[in-house]
């Protein structure tokens, strides 16, 4: 590095002598000469970039970034009741240790011998999530729940040859926006049509009568969520699947896997394609960067053939009793089939899948039930406490982890400001997304919240509304 007169620690061959020797060996005078051989003069930048002064010393760099990010509030500093697709759960230390291992953190596209452990960990994620879901096939996870839902409804459309996708109004609007993008097409007549199905305003569940009236011979699938975006457990899941099937449509359901120690697996209520978000399983929120979507189904050729994901399959090797791994029906994927592939696949969220595998292994059948029970009890306690406050209503019963809270005589915005001053992050404002719910906020209470924190929230709300 000319400026500081010393090589950069990230660039070994920036040592001037080494660089000169390499240039000599390739018969060039300078990098510029080589570039001019490959790139026409008119496209060369021709001036140094104008960027901030470098901070090549590690301590200086650390201080610089810490001085910026250190100003921020985290959910360690303030008690957060935010959820809405990204949730704070406790991350066991072993999850962090495995996720931080150099080998998993920095591997990418190595072969199935030299990266045997990565393949096996991918396979174990698939195996473990399938146990929670009651399914037999899953793949390396995709970007997030929204992408998983988008891929799932496209799978259903290809399976049925139909173009209408029914989605109830109690799903996440952000996810719905992602799904609408997946469903639309540049071919004016070829896109999938997303049709909204009503929500029962009393229960927050799917309006079954409305669903029934909309199903028909052109419906590819019903996509619903359990628990849905508003936290409500979809008690009529079996009925929804049965209605879909009677119309020849697929039943597609998005689930929160941390609920599956206490909630029935989607296979129990007739779901054909399950999808959802694995971030609750041992992955930090990372300001939304912890998302990790999964897709799963029964092990039937017609489903397997429609997956866009990489599907890791276990096999044997030339050595008896030894495991080897490979990818099933790899020719489906965009790496092989380009524009003829089933959607596309790419670099997704394998590290979070591995981390989730560690989480599921740590918790086991008892732990996953217990964490679900704690979440149920704490969230219902919080909801009960809030419902007693004058000016506060909790409209829906039968929820898991999240529930809307409706305020009268004030706005969510004002309530959240009040809470912020008391070092609390109030629930997500739903007044824009669900105007029918009035001034409502989506509160999230998990196993991380203590009795004291919940009581303090109740106290603060009581004061805010007094």
């Amino acid at each position, binding site marked *: 590095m000319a400026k500081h007169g010393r090589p*950069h620690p*990230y660039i070994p061959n920036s040592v001037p002598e080494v660089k000169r020797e390499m240039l000599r060996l390739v018969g060039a005078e300078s990098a510029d000469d080589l570039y001019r051989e490959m*790139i026409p003069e*008119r*496209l060369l*930048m021709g001036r*140094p970039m104008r960027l901030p002064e*470098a901070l090549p010393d590690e301590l200086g760099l650390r201080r*610089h*970034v810490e001085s*910026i*990010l*250190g100003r921020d509030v985290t*959910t360690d500093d303030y008690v957060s009741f935010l959820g809405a697709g*990204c949730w704070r759960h406790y991350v*066991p230390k*072993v999850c962090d240790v495995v996720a931080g291992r150099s*080998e998993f*953190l*920095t591997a990418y596209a*190595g072969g199935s*011998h030299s*990266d*045997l452990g990565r393949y096996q960990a991918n396979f*174990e994620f*698939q195996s473990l999530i399938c146990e929670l879901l009651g399914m*037999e096939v*899953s793949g390396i996870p995709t*970007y997030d729940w929204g992408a998983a839902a988008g891929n799932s409804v496209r799978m259903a459309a290809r399976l049925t040859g139909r173009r209408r996708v029914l989605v109830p109004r109690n799903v996440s609007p952000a996810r719905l926006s992602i799904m609408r993008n997946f469903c639309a097409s*540049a*071919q004016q007549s070829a*896109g999938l049509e997303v049709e909204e199905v009503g929500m029962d305003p009393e229960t927050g569940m799917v309006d079954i009568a409305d669903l029934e009236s909309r199903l028909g011979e052109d419906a590819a699938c019903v996509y619903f969520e359990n628990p849905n975006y508003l936290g409500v457990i979809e*008690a009529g*899941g079996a009925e929804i699947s049965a209605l879909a099937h009677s119309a020849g449509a697929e039943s597609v359901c998005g689930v929160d896997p941390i609920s*599956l120690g206490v*909630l*029935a*697996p989607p296979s129990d209520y007739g779901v054909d394609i399950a999808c959802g978000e694995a971030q609750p399983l041992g992955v930090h929120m*990372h300001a939304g960067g912890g*998302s990790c979507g999964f897709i799963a189904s029964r092990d039937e050729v017609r489903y397997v053939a429609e997956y866009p994901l990489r599907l890791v*399959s276990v096999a044997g090797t030339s050595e008896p009793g030894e495991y080897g791994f490979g990818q099933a029906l*790899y020719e489906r994927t*965009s790496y092989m089939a*380009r*524009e003829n592939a089933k959607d*596309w696949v*790419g*670099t*997704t969220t394998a590290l*979070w899948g591995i981390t989730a595998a560690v989480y599921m*292994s*740590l918790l*086991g*059948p008892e*732990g996953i039930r*217990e964490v679900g029970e704690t979440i*149920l*009890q704490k969230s219902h306690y919080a909801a009960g406490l809030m419902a007693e406050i004058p000016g506060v209503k909790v409209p829906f019963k*039968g929820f898991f982890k999240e529930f809307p809270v409706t305020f009268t005589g004030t706005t969510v915005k004002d309530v*959240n400001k009040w809470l912020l001053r008391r070092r609390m992050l109030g629930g997500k404002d739903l007044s824009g997304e669900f105007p029918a719910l009035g001034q409502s906020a989506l509160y999230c209470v998990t196993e991380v919240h203590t009795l004291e924190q919940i009581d303090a929230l109740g106290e603060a709300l009581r004061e805010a509304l007094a």
Partner: protein
Amino acid sequence: MRVREYHAARWSEPIIHELTSPGERGFIPPEAEEKIRARVGEASELVPASMRRREKPGLPELSQAQVLRHYLRLSQMTLGMELGIDVGVGTCTMKYSPKVNEDLAQMIAEVHPEQPEETIQGLLQILYEFGDVFLREISGMNAFNFQPPGGSAGAYNNALMMRRYHQVHGEPWRDEIVTTIFSHPCDAACPATAGYKVLTLYPDSETGLPDTEALKEAVGPRTAGCFITNPEDTGIFNKQIDEWTGIVHDAGGLCSYDQANANAIMGVTRAREAGFDMCFFNLHKTFSSPHGSSGPGSAAIGVTEELEPYLPVPVIVKRRRRYHLDYERPLSIGRVRDFMGNVQAVVRSYAWCMALGAEGIREAAEVSMINNQYLSEKLRRIRGVSLPFGGRRLDQARWSLAKLKDETGVGVQEVNNRLVDYGVQSMFTSHHPWLVPEPFTPEPCETYSKADIDYWVEALETVIEEAYADPELVKAAPHRSSNHNVADGGFDDPARWAMSWRAYQRKRGDER
């Protein structure tokens, strides 16, 4: 230089389900406090009867040390970039991810994406400045957004912006895109997912690039745009690229530049001057965020002024020294991912750029390019190796072992299986179709020293010498890796494939 007598860890590790020991447990979640339990009662009563889980899930039962040991063993049987010399894994830019950046990224681990803006001004500042200060200068584009959570998602995002643009401009009939066969497969697959018909241009056998005339013939009134990687996967830079974008523009289309891997051209040549309307950089490649065994990654999408209104929401804007998340963008495509994307990757990439500055970033580009010239010089001298198409390559090159295969029967797959016996990661071959027979695509980015490159070449040369001397030895490889050859895995056979332990038990449980 001598190759090492490496041996990979070989733990013969069972599948985690086989390690189960009934009653053991690895973790105890917090319980609800007594007062809470007294108030709300049994948890199961809080679930509608129809939705209660009746049977326990078949998760394994292990104590904590046993779970940790299992996954540490799996990690040991994974040759991550930090342990190897990943020169062979081209198109992936296997560069060093500075460890200090892991600490910095961890600072946002417990931040919720829906926190009030005033509580995350620091994070928003980094996101804004990384785009507005660094990537704008590096690309010449006008605005950036980090919502696409991987490179292919970046290409998909750009296809959606293209689709929306033509709809808004009253030309929804534009339903064709053009790409080249040596552009990444996502440049075909992602527009296809968005509904586009894909026209693929094939290269001239001399230059390795499609003919400009072929592009002229491919475009027309239905052209929505092009999706092009440059340098292409071959490492060849299309010198007519500005003419190409001009041809597409003249036909009324938009141009999307796949810069997933821009390692040799940072500070050298830019998307703006080449005439592109949109581009994307993979932060997990060029900008050092770790690959994570295949994600989470991040694509930074850059656009010109004209395309800025179409960016996914939210867009981070700066008003009166405060940063805001702007959702009020009527022309936006909406969302391609929930929240703001994999922002931890942006924090790392920002730190990487700050550690290097303008000169350092340019130096990284130059050294990666020189490294490739040096590697090429050495590879050229190895028998059985050839470089189809003429001309110098930038950061990587697509070589062929066709001659080796002809002369010994040993192809690139067998070479890869043997290479790992020397502690060298399997090479990336090529995306499909294999226009270059028995391909491999090394990319010696700036992370690797001259000695690293020398070792890597020595390992490859050793394997090739073995192939000539004793082809059966190579064909039976690996010998010192974590497991043995998977000759017939049944991966396309529904009766044998197994994507979960329960499926394996059902189909092949008797084999154990």
